[in-house]
C-alpha cells in the first residue's frame, strides 16, 4: 500500500470520524437537552405530575428521531475516497488533482504505471505535505457546546438529588417510589411537669422530606400546630396535654404531658379523741382544714389527701419541730397528742421536688370551763311557810361533768354548814328539785336562813362554782296573814270595781236596748255604741278571768303556808272556780251572737241578741255579786283560822323554847329574846280575837260569840302573858328552872286556848255547812213544788195560752224569789254544781222564750217551752240533790278528767262504729232502691237504740260528772245530735243527713276531748309550775285512732264482706276529707 492510500484512508477516516463524531455529539447534546428539559419539567410540574410521562415520551422520541436523523445525515455525509482525494488536492493546493486522479485512475484501473507514477508522485507529495483535516468543531461551537454542557451539568449537580430522582424517573418514566422513615421519634415523650412550666417538643431524626406537624389536646379534640425545625415549644403548660407528631407518612405515639398542680392537701380529716375524763366521744372534723380545736391531751389523728402524689409530707410546728406524715401517693396520716396551743404548717414535697406553699394552721386548746350553778327557784329571798319546806330548783352545768352538789346554809349568824345532796352526778347538766326541809332546825318566827349551792366539776383541776346566796325567812303566822289579807282585800276591791263597771255597763246597755226595742232600725251610731259596749264587756270579762287566776295564786300561798284548814281552803278553791265561771261560755256566746247580729244588722236578730245579752250580762253581774258575797262569807272563818293558827304557833314556839331552855348551851339572853317575841305574838293573838269578835254577828253567830267570850275571859283570868314575862325575866337572871316553870305554865294555858279555838272553828265550819245544806234542802223542796205545779199548768195548756199565763208568770216570779233566797245563803254557791247553772239558764231561757212568743202571738212552740221548763226544774232539783249527796259524802262526784276522757274516747269509738254501720245501711238502701226490708229495719232500729244509749250515757255523764259539766255546751250539742239521729232512725229514716249528724257527733266528741285535754294541761301547768307539760294537738291522730279502733270492733268483723267494703270506702273518704 501506498502512502496515498493510507493517507487517503486516514483522511477519510478522519473526516468521517469527524462527521460521525459531530453527529454523535449532536445526538448527545440533544439527549442532554432532552434530559434537561425533562428535569426542568420534573421540577416544574413535580415528579408526580401526569404530564411528565408524556414529556418523557416526547423527549425520548424526539431525541431518538433527531439522533437518527443526525446520524443518518452524518452517515449520508460520510466522505468517500474520491472526496477525500479531492479534499487532499484542494487542501494541498494541487492543482493537478493528483490525488483525485490517482484515485480515480485506480478506480478506473488505468495504467498501473501511470497510476504508479502518480502514486509515486502522490506519495511524495504526501510526504512533503502534511495535510491537516478540518477540526470537528469550530471554537464557537466548542464554546457553546461546552457552555451548554457546563451549564447543564452544573445545574444538575446543584440539584443532584432531584436530578438524580428526575433522571431515574426519566429513565423509568415512572415516579420514584419514595421510602420515608416510618417512625417519628419525639422528644420528650411522656413527661410530668409542674404547672406553668415550658415544654419543648422535638422530632428526633426527622424525615426531612416531609412536613411534620404537632397535634395536641387537653380535651377531646386534637389541635394542630406546625413545627419549626421539627420542634415546638410550649411556653407554659397549665393543664395535662396529650400530643403526637405526624407527617404525611407516619405518626408518632401519643404522649402525655402530665401537668401537676402545686401540691396541697385536698382533704383533711382530723379525728380528735378528747381525753377520757371529758366523757366526750371522738370527733371527726373534715371542715377545719387542719385547724385543730381540742381539749388538752386530746389525741389527734390527722389524715390528709393530697391533690397530687406526694413524695413527702410533714408537719412543721412553730417551734421548729417536724412530724412526718406516713403514707404514699395521695394519702398521708399521722397521730399526735395535743399538748399546747401552737401553729404549724404542712409541708408537702412532690415528685418534681416542688413544695407546697406554707399555710399556717393552728392548734387551739378548748378550755375546760368551771362549772356553773344557779338556784332557779325561788331565785329570790323568800318567806318560809309553815311546812318549813323550802323547795329549790337547782340548775348546774359544766362542760365535762359535775360532782358533789352541796347545799350550804347558815342560820342567822351560826356557823356555815353544808349538806351534800349528790356526790355522783351523771351528765353535764343537772336540774334538780330539792326540798330543803328546815323543820328539824326548829326555826323561830323571824329566823333567817342564808343558803346557797356549790358544785365541782369532774376535771382533774376540780373547779368549783357557787350559786347566788338567798335568804329564807320564817315569818310569823300573823305576818303571813297580814300579807294575804292585803292581797285578798285587793282582789275583793278589784272584783267590786268590776261589778260597779258591769252595773254601769248594764245601765248603758239597757238604755240602748230600749232604744232598739223602740226602733229596731239601727244606724251606724247604734252599731258603734253597741260595739263599744261589747268591747267594754269583753274587757271586764278578761279582767275577771285574770282575777280568778290571781286568786288561785293566793290560794296556793295559803295552802303553802298551811294558813287555813282544808275545808276553808276547799271553799276558797270553790270560790275561785266560781270566779272562773263568771265570764262563762254563755256570756261569750251571747257576745258572739251580739257581734254577729251587729255585723248583719238584721233588726230581728239584733233584737233577739240584745235580749239574750241582757240576761247574760245580768248573769255576769249576779255571779260577781255572788262571788263577793262568798268572799265576805268566808272571812269569819278565815279570821277564826288566823286566830287558831296564831295560837298554835305560840304554843309550838313556847314548847320549842322550853326545850331549848333545858339545853345549857343555849344562851339565856337569846332565849329571853325569843320569849319576848312569843309574848308579842300573844298580844297579836288577842288583837286577832278582838277582830274576830267584831266580825261575828250577835244573832247568827251567837254560839260562836259566846264561846269566844268564854275564851277571852279565860285568857284574861289565866294571864299567860305574866308567865311569859316572868319567864323572860328569869331567863335574863339566868334562873333557868324558874323560867322553865313559867314556860310550862304558859304552855299549858296556850294549849287550852288552842283547843278551845279549835272547837270554835269546828262549830263555825259546821254552822255554815248546815246553813248551806238547809238552803239546798229548802230549794229542792220548793223546786219540786214548782215542778208539780208546772206539770199541772202544762196539762192545762191548750191552744190559747192566756188562761195559764198569769199563773205561769207567778210561777216564774216565784222561781226568781226562790233563787234569790237560795243564792242569798252564804257559801251556797260553792256547793252548787255547774250543771245547776246550766239548767237554771235553760229554765229561765225557756220561760223567756215562752213569754216572748206569747207576746209575739206565736203559740206553736209553747208546749215545747213548757216541757223545757219542767225539765229544767226537775234537773235543778236533781242537781241540788247530788250536790247535797256530794257535800255529805265529802267530795265531788265524777271521776275526774281522765275518766271523762276515757269515756269520751270509748264513745267516739262506738260512734264511729255506728257511723260505719249507717254508711253500710245507707248503701244497701240505695241499692234496694230506697226500700227497707224487715232485716234492715231491724238493723236500723238496733242502731237507733245504740244511738239513743250513747245520748243517754252522755246525759248521765253530764248530770253526774262535774268535769263534763265544764264542757256542757259541747256535750249538750252532742246529746241533741245523737237524739236527733236516734229519732230519725227510730222512724226508719236513713239519709245522708243522718250521716252528717253522726259525723258531727264524732267531730264534737273529739272537740270535747281536745278541750278537756287543753284544760287538763292548763290545770297541770298551774299546779306544777316546775313540770311543764305541753299539749299536743292530735286531732288527726284522734280520728285515725277512732277508725282503727272501730275497725277492730267485733261488730265490724261480724258484718258481711260487702258492708265491710263500703265501710272501708267510707273511712277512706273521711280520711280524705280530714286531709
Amino acid at each position, binding site marked *: 500500500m501506498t502512502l496515498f492510500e493510507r493517507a487517503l484512508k486516514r483522511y477519510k477516516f478522519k473526516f468521517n470520524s469527524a462527521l460521525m463524531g459531530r453527529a454523535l455529539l449532536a445526538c448527545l447534546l440533544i439527549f442532554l437537552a432532552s434530559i434537561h428539559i425533562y428535569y426542568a419539567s420534573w421540577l416544574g410540574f413535580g415528579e408526580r405530575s401526569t404530564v411528565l410521562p408524556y414529556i418523557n415520551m416526547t423527549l425520548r422520541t424526539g431525541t431518538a428521531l433527531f439522533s437518527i436523523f443526525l446520524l443518518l445525515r452524518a452517515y449520508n455525509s460520510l466522505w468517500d475516497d474520491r472526496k477525500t482525494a479531492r479534499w487532499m488536492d484542494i487542501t494541498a493546493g494541487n492543482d493537478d488533482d493528483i490525488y483525485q486522479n490517482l484515485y480515480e485512475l485506480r478506480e478506473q484501473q488505468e495504467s498501473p504505471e501511470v497510476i504508479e507514477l502518480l502514486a509515486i508522485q502522490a506519495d511524495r507529495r504526501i510526504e512533503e505535505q502534511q495535510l491537516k483535516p478540518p477540526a470537528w468543531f469550530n471554537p464557537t461551537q466548542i464554546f457553546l457546546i461546552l457552555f451548554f454542557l457546563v451549564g447543564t451539568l452544573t445545574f444538575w449537580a446543584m440539584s443532584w438529588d432531584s436530578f438524580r430522582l428526575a433522571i431515574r424517573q426519566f429513565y423509568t418514566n415512572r415516579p420514584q417510589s419514595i421510602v420515608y422513615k416510618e417512625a417519628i421519634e419525639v422528644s420528650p415523650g411522656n413527661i410530668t411537669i409542674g404547672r406553668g412550666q415550658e415544654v419543648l417538643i422535638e422530632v428526633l431524626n426527622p424525615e426531612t422530606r416531609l412536613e411534620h406537624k404537632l397535634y395536641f389536646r387537653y380535651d377531646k379534640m386534637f389541635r394542630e400546630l406546625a413545627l419549626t425545625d421539627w420542634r415546638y415549644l410550649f411556653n407554659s403548660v397549665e393543664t395535662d396535654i396529650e400530643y403526637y407528631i405526624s407527617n404525611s407518612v407516619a405518626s408518632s405515639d401519643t404522649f402525655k404531658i402530665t401537668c401537676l398542680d402545686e401540691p396541697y392537701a385536698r382533704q383533711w380529716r382530723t379525728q380528735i379523741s378528747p381525753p377520757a375524763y371529758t366523757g366526750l366521744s371522738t370527733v371527726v372534723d373534715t371542715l377545719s382544714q387542719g385547724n385543730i380545736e381540742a381539749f388538752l391531751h386530746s389525741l389527734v389523728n390527722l389524715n390528709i389527701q393530697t391533690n397530687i402524689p406526694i413524695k413527702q409530707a410533714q408537719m412543721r410546728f412553730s417551734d421548729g419541730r417536724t412530724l412526718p406524715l406516713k403514707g404514699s401517693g395521695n394519702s398521708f396520716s399521722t397521730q399526735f397528742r395535743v399538748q399546747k396551743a401552737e401553729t404549724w404548717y404542712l409541708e408537702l414535697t412532690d415528685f418534681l421536688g416542688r413544695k407546697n406553699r406554707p399555710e399556717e394552721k393552728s392548734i387551739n386548746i378548748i378550755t375546760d370551763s368551771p362549772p356553773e350553778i344557779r338556784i332557779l327557784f325561788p331565785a329570790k329571798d323568800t318567806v318560809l311557810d309553815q311546812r318549813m319546806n323550802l323547795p329549790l330548783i337547782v340548775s348546774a352545768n359544766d362542760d365535762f361533768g359535775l360532782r358533789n352538789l352541796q347545799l350550804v346554809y347558815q342560820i342567822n349568824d351560826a356557823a356555815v354548814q353544808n349538806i351534800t345532796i349528790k356526790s355522783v352526778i351523771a351528765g353535764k347538766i343537772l336540774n334538780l328539785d330539792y326540798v330543803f326541809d328546815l323543820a328539824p332546825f326548829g326555826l323561830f318566827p323571824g329566823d333567817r336562813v342564808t343558803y346557797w349551792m356549790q358544785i365541782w366539776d369532774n376535771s382533774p383541776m376540780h373547779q368549783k362554782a357557787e350559786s347566788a346566796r338567798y335568804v329564807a325567812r320564817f315569818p310569823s303566822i300573823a305576818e303571813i296573814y297580814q300579807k294575804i289579807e292585803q292581797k285578798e282585800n285587793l282582789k275583793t276591791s278589784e272584783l267590786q270595781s268590776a261589778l260597779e263597771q258591769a252595773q*254601769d255597763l248594764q245601765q248603758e246597755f239597757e238604755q240602748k236596748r230600749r232604744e232598739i226595742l223602740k*226602733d229596731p232600725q239601727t244606724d251606724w251610731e247604734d252599731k258603734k255604741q253597741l260595739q263599744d259596749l261589747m268591747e267594754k264587756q269583753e274587757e271586764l270579762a278578761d279582767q275577771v278571768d285574770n282575777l280568778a287566776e290571781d286568786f288561785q295564786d293566793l290560794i296556793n300561798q295559803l295552802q303553802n303556808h298551811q294558813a287555813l284548814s282544808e275545808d276553808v281552803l276547799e271553799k276558797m278553791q270553790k270560790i275561785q272556780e266560781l270566779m272562773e265561771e263568771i265570764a262563762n261560755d254563755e256570756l261569750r256566746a251571747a257576745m258572739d251572737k251580739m257581734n254577729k247580729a251587729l255585723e248583719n244588722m238584721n233588726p230581728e236578730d239584733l233584737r233577739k241578741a240584745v235580749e239574750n245579752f241582757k240576761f247574760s250580762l245580768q248573769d255576769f253581774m249576779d255571779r260577781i255579786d255572788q262571788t263577793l258575797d262568798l268572799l265576805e262569807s268566808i272571812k269569819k272563818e278565815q279570821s277564826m283560822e288566823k286566830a287558831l293558827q296564831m295560837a298554835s304557833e305560840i304554843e309550838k314556839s313556847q314548847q320549842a323554847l322550853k326545850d331549848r331552855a333545858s339545853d345549857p348551851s343555849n344562851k339565856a339572853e337569846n332565849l329571853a329574846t325569843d320569849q319576848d317575841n312569843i309574848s308579842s305574838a300573844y298580844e297579836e293573838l288577842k288583837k286577832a280575837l278582838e277582830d274576830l269578835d267584831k266580825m261575828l254577828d250577835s244573832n247568827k253567830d251567837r254560839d260562836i260569840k259566846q264561846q269566844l267570850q268564854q275564851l277571852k275571859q279565860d285568857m284574861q283570868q289565866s294571864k299567860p302573858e305574866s308567865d311569859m314575862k316572868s319567864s323572860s325575866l328569869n331567863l335574863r337572871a339566868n334562873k333557868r328552872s324558874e323560867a322553865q316553870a313559867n314556860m310550862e305554865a304558859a304552855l299549858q294555858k296556850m294549849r287550852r286556848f288552842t283547843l278551845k279555838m279549835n272547837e270554835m272553828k269546828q262549830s263555825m265550819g259546821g254552822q255554815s255547812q248546815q246553813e248551806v245544806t238547809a238552803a239546798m234542802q229548802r230549794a229542792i223542796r220548793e223546786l219540786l213544788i214548782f215542778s208539780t205545779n208546772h206539770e199541772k199548768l202544762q196539762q192545762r195548756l191548750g191552744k*190559747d195560752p192566756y188562761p195559764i199565763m198569769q*199563773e205561769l208568770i207567778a*210561777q216564774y216570779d216565784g222561781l226568781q224569789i226562790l233563787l234569790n233566797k237560795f243564792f242569798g245563803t252564804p257559801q251556797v254557791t260553792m256547793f252548787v254544781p255547774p250543771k245547776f247553772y246550766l239548767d237554771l239558764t235553760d229554765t229561765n231561757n225557756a220561760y223567756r222564750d215562752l213569754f216572748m212568743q206569747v207576746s209575739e202571738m206565736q203559740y206553736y212552740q209553747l208546749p215545747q217551752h213548757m216541757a223545757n221548763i219542767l225539765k229544767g226544774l226537775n234537773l235543778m232539783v236533781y242537781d241540788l*240533790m247530788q250536790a247535797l249527796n256530794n257535800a255529805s259524802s265529802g267530795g265531788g262526784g265524777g271521776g275526774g278528767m281522765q275518766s271523762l276522757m276515757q269515756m269520751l274516747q270509748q264513745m267516739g269509738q262506738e260512734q264511729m262504729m255506728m257511723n260505719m254501720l249507717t254508711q253500710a245501711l245507707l248503701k244497701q238502701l240505695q241499692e234496694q232502691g230506697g226500700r227497707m226490708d224487715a232485716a234492715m229495719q231491724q238493723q236500723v232500729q238496733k242502731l237507733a237504740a245504740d244511738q239513743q244509749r250513747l245520748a243517754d250515757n252522755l246525759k248521765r255523764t253530764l248530770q253526774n260528772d262535774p268535769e263534763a259539766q265544764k264542757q256542757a255546751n259541747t256535750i249538750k250539742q252532742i246529746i241533741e245530735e245523737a237524739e236527733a239521729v236516734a229519732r230519725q232512725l227510730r222512724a226508719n229514716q236513713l239519709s245522708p243527713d243522718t250521716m252528717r249528724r253522726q259525723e258531727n257527733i264524732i267531730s264534737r266528741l273529739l272537740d270535747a276531748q281536745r278541750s278537756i285535754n287543753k284544760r287538763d294541761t292548763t290545770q297541770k301547768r298551774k299546779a306544777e309550775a316546775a313540770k311543764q307539760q305541753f299539749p299536743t294537738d292530735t286531732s288527726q291522730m284522734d280520728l285515725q285512732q277512732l277508725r282503727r279502733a272501730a275497725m277492730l270492733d267485733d261488730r265490724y268483723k261480724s258484718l258481711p264482706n260487702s258492708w265491710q267494703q263500703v265501710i272501708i270506702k267510707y273511712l277512706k273518704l273521711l280520711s280524705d276529707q280530714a286531709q
Partner: protein
Amino acid sequence: MKSRFLILLFLSASFSGLLRGQYDQRQILLQQAQNHFGMRQYTQAENLYKQVLELVPTDQTAILQLINIAYATGNVDKAQDVLDRHGAYLPPITLLDQQIQILVYKGKAEEAWPKVLQSISMQPNDQNRYRTIASHFERRGFFDYVQRLYQLGRKNFKDPNLFALEYANSALYAQRYELALNEYLGWLERNPANLYFVNNQCKTILEADSTLINVITDKANSSSGIVLKELLAGVLVQRKDYAAALDVYKKLSPDKLVNFANQQFSSRQDEVAFLAFEYLETIETDIFRKNQYLFNRATIAHRNLDYQLADSLVTVVVQDSLLNLPQNKWRSGVGYSARKLKSELVLSFTHDAAQAIEWLTQAIEYTRSTVQIAEIQVETARLNILNQDLEAAKSILNQVNDNNFAEQKEHCLFLIALFENNIELADSLMNEQIIHRPEGKYTNDSIYLMMHLLNLSEESKSHFLASYRAYLLQDPNSIDMLSEIFSEDAEEELMILALQWALEFDQKDKALAILAHDWQDPIAREYSALLALLLEKSSSEQQRQAREFLKEYPNSVFSPEFRSILSSRPLSSH
C-alpha cells in the same frame, strides 16, 4: 301668676291638714265623752261634748248626746238650752223631734202638737214617724195625743184601720175601754189569727167594764166573719156564761162547735166542754161520734172527780150494742177508751186492781194498734204492781217494747223496785228517769217519793209505801195512813203530801183537818196556805187569805201566786 298659684296650693294643703287634725281630735274627744257617758260620768261627758262643739259646732252626735245627758240628769231646761244653742245644726226633722220630746217632757203636749204636725208633714210617708212620736207622748201618759196622732195618721194615709193595734193598746192604757175594744175587734176581724190575744185583752177590758160585752155581742152578730163569734164565745166562757157561749156556736156549723168543744176540752174549760159535748150528742146522728161525745163527757166528769156521773156515762158507751158488734169494734177508738176509763173508775170505786185489770183485758179486744196494746200492757203492769203481783208486772213489762211507753215502763219498774223495798235500785231508776226524761210526767213524782223514803225511818218506809200503794189505788184511806206515819216521824212534808192527796181525792174534811195542823216547817206552812186556797171557792175569801198570807210572808216563793190571786185570778185546782 305662677307664684300666686303656689301660694294658693300651699294654703289649701295647710287648710286640709288642719281640717284633718281637727277631725281626729273630734273623734278622740267623742270617744272619751262616750266613755264617760257610758260610765255615767255625765259632767265629764258633757264637758267633752262641749269641747267637740267648740271644735265642730255642727257636730250632731255631740248635740244629741248633750241633750241625752240633759234627759239622763232630769234637766230638761238644759236640753232646751242645748237645742237653742246648737239646734240649728241638726237636720230640721231631728230638731223637731227633739223639740217635741222636750215639750212633751215638760208636759206641754199642746205646744208640741203643731211641731208634731210639722214633723209629720216633713216625712208624710213614714209610718214609723207616727209611732216614734207617739212613743214620746205615751211615755208621759198623753194617751189622748197618741190617739190623736194615730187618727191623724189614718187620715193622712187614708186608711181608717191603720195603727189599729197601737191605737187599741193606747186606748186601753188610757182606760178608754170601749174605744180599745172596738179597735181590737176591728183589728181581729182583719187578723183572725190573733184571737187568743184579743180574747185576753177583752178579758181585761171586761173585767174593767163588763157591760162592754154587748159591744162584742153586737159586733159578733153583725159580723159576717166567724172570728168575732169565736171571740164572743171565748169571752162568754171566761165569764162563765157557758150556755150563752154555747149558743153562739150553736148558730155556727156543727164542725165549728166540735172544734170549740174539743178546744175547751183540751184547755180544761170542762164545764163548757161538757155542755158542748152534751149538745153535740143531741144533734149527732153518727153512732161512733155520738159515743165519742158521750165518752168525752165521762172523761170530763172523771177528771172532775164526779165518778158516779162518769161511770154512768161511760157505761152507756160500754153497753152500746152497736159499738160492740164485731164489725164496729175497731171502727172508732171509743170502745177501747171507754173500757180504759171504766178500768180507772172501777179502781176509784173499789180500789181493787184486779177488777180494773179485767176491764183492761176487755179493752184489749178493742185495741186498734200496737200502740194501744202497749198502753194496755203498761197499765196492766201498773195495776199488777198495785195488786202486789210484781212478777206478773215484770213479765208484762218485758213484753213492752214500744218506745212511746218507755217512760211509763220505767216508772213501773221504779214502782216495782219501791214495793220490793229495793231502795237502791229505785234510786238508780229515779236517776235514770231524770237523765232520760227530765221533763217526764213521773219524774218529779219519783223524786218526791225517793225524798220521802230516804228521810223516813226503816219502819216508816214500809208504812209509807203501803199508803202510797193505797193512794195509787185511789183509796182515800191512804191520807190517814200517811197521817199516821207523820205522827211517828213528824215529817211535815208528809202532811203536805197527805194534803195534796186529800185535795186530789176531794176529801175536803181531811184536807181541812190537815190544814189545821200547826206547821213548823216554813215551806210546809207557806205551801199549805197556798193549797188551802184550793178549798176555798169564794173569790173574795181567796183574796182575803192571799192578803193575809202576803202580810205575813211577803217574800215567800209562793207570794207571786198569792199576788196573782189578788189581781182577781181565782186559783185553779187543776
